[in-house]
């Protein structure tokens, strides 16, 4: 056998092998995808999203699926690495033929996939986490093209606006200090907080940051205290915030402490314990205090399945809603990605776990389901994350159905 025929045969074999690998996988099931951190430090976000979505999918399948077709979740671990997220999004769409994706766990990952989703893959994505504003307000949106990225989670601009406005307008604090994490989320958050303070005619009295591995925040806390901060606004996740409140306790510092939604779940109280008492957290969802029946059912189902509390309810609840939004859209328009996208922009009302949307969830120009008006401020009170409500006498929380406890505006202590 001559060398050239040998070569051709080999090449043909290689080609054939690759074709078989890619050709497979068209089935009757409707597939949804997820690519996020399922290992590493950020994995708790990914795990919550996956668990939330799975509960929704199992519920739907138990009731006969979508028009008789079973719903399936294909999940991938991107290790919090945008390069992998891009690869896996391509794989999910091209090989697994998913018709919708439930976000990722990392804003940088979403920013990396956004142009590919809009230009090449053209499959709708609903993000329960990842709050960088530009994810949904992307190039396609600005140019008026079809935008395939949606969000049921919080978005950066709205969250910062809500935090600043609540402290300045409702609590009357004009001397606000910032304490943010140098990691991804903190950097954007810091910028957004500064912007909103400026829009309120203020500038922060102190602006400190900390690192992933800081376990003692003494310098930062003393500086903010000496700067006369009436409250400290923070962007960080559970572990960093734990170190902040522990340091505050060590230094006997009582300055009110207000955090973005990174600590809006039982994991924070579990880690920080009573040091967390009185910490305020802005969020979209709290699973403590009075709940709707649907949410109670979800919380119970979660406990039953995993034998533990949700570490961050916002992500699980958001993923659950994302799946139901996909279901609603698919039922309306069929399981074709571009039609699902169009249908998502036309859901007039949606009873979700995050909230009951009595307006269109998304519109052509607004791809964030939750706006700053939908945010709530919560206070860590004896292990529970209770919503802070306001009446004529000031802010209060309901420790049980019948007890109102008012909050001191300068110390955040219960009166």
């Amino acid at each position: 056998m001559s060398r050239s025929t040998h070569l051709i045969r080999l090449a043909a074999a290689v080609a054939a092998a690759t074709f078989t690998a890619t050709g497979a996988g068209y089935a009757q099931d409707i597939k949804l995808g997820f690519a996020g951190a399922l290992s590493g430090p950020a994995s708790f976000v990914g795990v919550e999203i996956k668990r939330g979505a799975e509960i929704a999918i199992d519920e739907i399948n138990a009731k006969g699926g979508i028009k008789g077709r079973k719903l399936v979740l294909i999940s991938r671990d991107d290790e919090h690495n945008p390069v992998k997220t891009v690869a896996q999004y391509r794989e999910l769409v091209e090989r697994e033929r998913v018709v919708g994706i439930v976000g990722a766990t990392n804003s940088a990952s979403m920013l990396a996939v956004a142009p590919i989703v809009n230009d090449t893959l053209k499959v709708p994505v609903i993000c329960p986490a990842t709050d960088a504003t530009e994810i949904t307000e992307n190039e396609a949106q600005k140019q008026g093209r079809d935008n395939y990225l949606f969000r049921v989670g919080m978005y950066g601009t709205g969250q910062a606006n809500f935090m600043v406005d609540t402290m300045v307008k409702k609590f009357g604090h004009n001397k606000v200090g910032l304490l943010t994490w140098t990691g991804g989320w903190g950097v954007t958050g810091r910028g957004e907080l500064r912007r909103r303070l400026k829009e309120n005619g203020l500038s922060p009295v102190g602006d400190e940051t900390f690192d992933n591995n800081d376990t003692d925040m003494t310098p930062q806390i003393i500086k903010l205290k000496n700067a006369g901060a009436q409250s400290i606004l923070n962007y960080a996740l559970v572990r960093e915030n734990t170190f902040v409140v522990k340091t505050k306790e060590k230094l006997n510092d009582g300055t009110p402490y207000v955090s973005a939604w990174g600590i809006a779940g039982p994991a924070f109280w579990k880690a920080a314990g009573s040091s967390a008492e009185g910490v305020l957290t802005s969020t979209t969802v709290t699973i403590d205090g009075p709940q709707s029946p649907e949410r109670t059912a979800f919380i119970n189902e979660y406990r039953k399945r995993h034998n533990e509390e949700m570490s961050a309810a916002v992500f699980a609840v958001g993923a659950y809603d994302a799946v139901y939004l996909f279901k609603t859209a698919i039922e309306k328009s069929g399981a074709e990605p571009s039609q699902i996208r169009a249908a998502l922009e036309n859901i007039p009302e949606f009873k979700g776990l995050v909230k009951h949307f009595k307006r269109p969830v998304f519109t052509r120009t607004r791809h964030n389901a939750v706006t700053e008006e939908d945010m709530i401020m919560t206070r860590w009170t004896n292990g529970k994350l209770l919503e802070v409500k306001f009446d004529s006498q000031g802010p209060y929380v309901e420790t049980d159905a019948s007890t109102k406890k008012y909050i001191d505006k300068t110390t955040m202590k219960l009166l």
Partner: protein
Amino acid sequence: MRGMRPALIALALVSLTALPLATGGTYYTYLGVIIGIYGIVAVGLNILSGYAGQFSLGHAAFMAMGAYTTALITKALSGSPVFYLSGAHVWLGILCGTTVAALSGILLAIPALRVRGPYLAMVTIAFGWVVWKILQEWVGVTGGDLGISSIPKPQIGTFRLETRHFYYVVLVFFIAALSLQHRLIASRFGMRVRAIKYSEIAVSSVGVDVYRLKVVVFVISAAFAGFGGTLFAHQQNYISPDNFQFFSSVFFLLAVLFGGAGTSLGPVIGAAFLIILPEMLHDFDHYRLIVYACLILITLYVLPRGVMGLFDLPVKRKIDTRAGIQPGERIESLPPVAGANLRVEALSRSFGGLLALSDVGFEIEGGSIHALIGPNGAGKTTLINIVSGVYRPDSGRILMDGSEVSISSMHVAAQRGIVRTFQTLKLFGDMTVIEHVLIALPSRSRSILYDAVMRSRRAREESESHLHQARALLHLLGIAHLEQAPANSLAYGHRRLLEIARALAVRPRILLLDEPAAGLVAEEIRALAAVIRTLKQIGMTILLVEHHMELVLSVSDRITVLDHGAVIADGRPADIRRNENVIQAYLGPSHAAA
């Protein structure tokens, strides 16, 4: 096996070219692009860590330099219609990005390469960390943790290269990177680089400025990484500090080690494996690290030299592989040497309060064989170390042909014509016998790096003549039949002779032999004596430090005796033999009685 190589290469090229066509969609193509880009970075790291043995755990930083530079430049220029229509901004950005990475490579290499081993690893880790932090903190320029998005896609004219087009661009660059690595490593430059891994001090003993060579290698490596970074930025259209974390640097080093450090294809195999493996392990997501770790451990067990170590296909070194000297081939006789006169005056040196040499002075006549003897600890090796530039003396002067010379380091000594051998052998591991000699031969060329890359006709001619000279030297020492043998496979006596051959290749005017007869058998010592006499005949000055008195007395013209760091006698062998001081201090009382 060798006959299969062209076929294998052709097959690889055909499959690589066909990949985007053979697979639907962009997933495989995208993975191919990423493997190609990471492969380029890994190839650059392989030159530094695999071949030169200098570990870097900061290469992600150079990639970041390239990526951010091109991102900022192309974004700034993309508005202008000239660039919008020509697409030149992207290629300009790639060029600038690579340059910036190379320049930052210089900046780091200068302090970093003063240290070795884990210290070097830490300096590179620190650098990677600093760059990564700056990317995060300098929000105004780098966009902080959210990075830079909407980086222009590469374009040719107005034609925009999508992933499936860019694949071919990366493929071409990738092949170019491999062949560049091949050229570098197969050249004399590459031999020196590889030799560094085994003994820096021996490389500098043949007149190579090792520090400078390491800096050059480091910069080449950084440029590869930077170049890979620029391609990465334009492929992804989005970069953030996440891409260039410490773990990315670990990834590249793992790729090199896993594939086979110091093999031509190892880093590529490693990169491909480490990218594809997790893609195949989706079902094990929760146990990903366990699977990963076990695979790495098992592979390391089975393949301690990496995957390519299994095939042991080192770069085909461009050396004629004929074994030994062919019948009828003319052996060039060694050209005459103008042996220099060497005088040391009042040399002193102490180590932590211990006086190793005190006020030592003597003279070696040009073209003579001068022996330096003395009991253990007399200061003989210290003296050789000072004359050959390993240590600086605390005081005293060294004069060559009557004028004072400053010998600041070994390679300076070698460049002045003072070359030495080592008491404890310092050979270059598994490099072949003839490579040891070729490394040391002086080149007329200004830049052997330029020669390596360009392969000019002049360079080819020179390498031809080098081959002849090298063979002549091996012949002189009687080890010509071993020219293709790896040094670490040689018998002890042959290793000694190879050390001398390597030193002679530098064409020394003064040759310092540090106990050349140690460990040799009688027959070998006789051959050694013959070699030393031949060298004298062509005019070389020889300083012989030796314990073997028979050899010393039979070849030396003059002998200096050291004891406790001071000269106790100096004269012709016959005089020394009778000198009372020497007999007392060195030969011992029993000899005196005899």
